[in-house]
């Protein structure tokens, strides 16, 4: 009499990777399309909200001046505090419309530039200006006039592309 053969009841379970592959493919395609390489890296200041604009000129190298709701910074270094839309805590020459520490710093940059000829593109250095969209013009004007007096009358307003 032939004995009954016990069959193995174990079976290997195959993981269905189709949906995961689908998800990865879509994410990869999206990321490849949004990949962008720029010559210069611009660090957006996280403490301010840039205004939106239809402007299309690409960003180029410049001296970064950031006017957040609470601080005025040059190349990441805090120069002055801002309170209720006015420069505070530092000397401001109201007659000449000049923020003294900002003027002194930019004048120093200008002197270095003219002495060392540091501008790599050979063009005149401009100020790359990031300001919070809710800043009143009074404080923006003060910063711009100070920079102009220090030898930087040309600006690039950094905006978010609409």
């Amino acid at each position, binding site marked *: 009499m032939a004995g009954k053969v016990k069959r193995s009841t174990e079976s290997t379970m195959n993981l269905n990777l189709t949906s995961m592959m689908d998800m990865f493919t879509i994410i990869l395609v999206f990321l490849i399309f949004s*990949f962008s*390489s720029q010559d210069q890296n611009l660090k957006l200041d996280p403490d301010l909200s840039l205004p*939106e*604009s239809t402007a299309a000129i690409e960003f180029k190298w410049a001296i970064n001046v950031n006017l957040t709701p609470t601080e005025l910074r040059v190349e990441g270094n805090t120069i002055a505090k801002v309170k209720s839309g006015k420069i505070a805590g530092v000397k401001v020459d109201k007659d000449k419309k000049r923020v003294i520490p900002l003027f002194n710093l930019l004048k120093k940059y200008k002197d270095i530039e003219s002495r060392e000829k540091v501008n790599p593109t050979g063009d005149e250095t401009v100020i790359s200006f990031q300001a919070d*969209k809710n800043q009143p*013009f009074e404080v923006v004007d003060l910063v711009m006039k100070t920079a102009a007096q220090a030898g930087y009358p040309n600006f690039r*307003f950094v*905006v978010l592309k609409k």
Partner: protein
Amino acid sequence: MPSKRGGEAPVDLNMVPIMNLFLAMIPFLLMCAAFFQVSVINASVPALSEGGDDPNDVPKKELQKVTINLQITKDGFMLSAVGDQPEDELQKVGGKIPLKKKEYDFDKLAERMKSIHDKYKKSDTVIILPEKEILYDTIIKTMDASRERIIDKRMDTREHLFTNAVVSAIL
């Protein structure tokens, strides 16, 4: 008689290398992804000129060009024109654009700037004069309205109007 065998068993693809590729590429691309597109607007402040021109030179009258003074007040926009044209002609160019439902009427401003530019084709300079309480966002939108007109958004076709913006304060 030989029996016909059935179809071959399906071959399972080895997904490990392709998963490896995805897991390596996705974090790299995620770090490089640009979620915000940034651009710039060129502007300047009025600067003192260093030397005057030769007083014997008679400057050539430029009748195809005007410079627009665009004041931004809390009541709206006020335009005036400066140029070599007769005074009464320049006065016709200027005017007020009041607020529309308590908001600045950028569409009307853009239309007016376009009509001025169509009449004086060599014009390219606008002097923006905001009051001190005017927000930076409003100034940027004013620059947008006076700088260019988007003809086709899909093809990014633009008509350049007053591309040279000078920002100054009302005295």
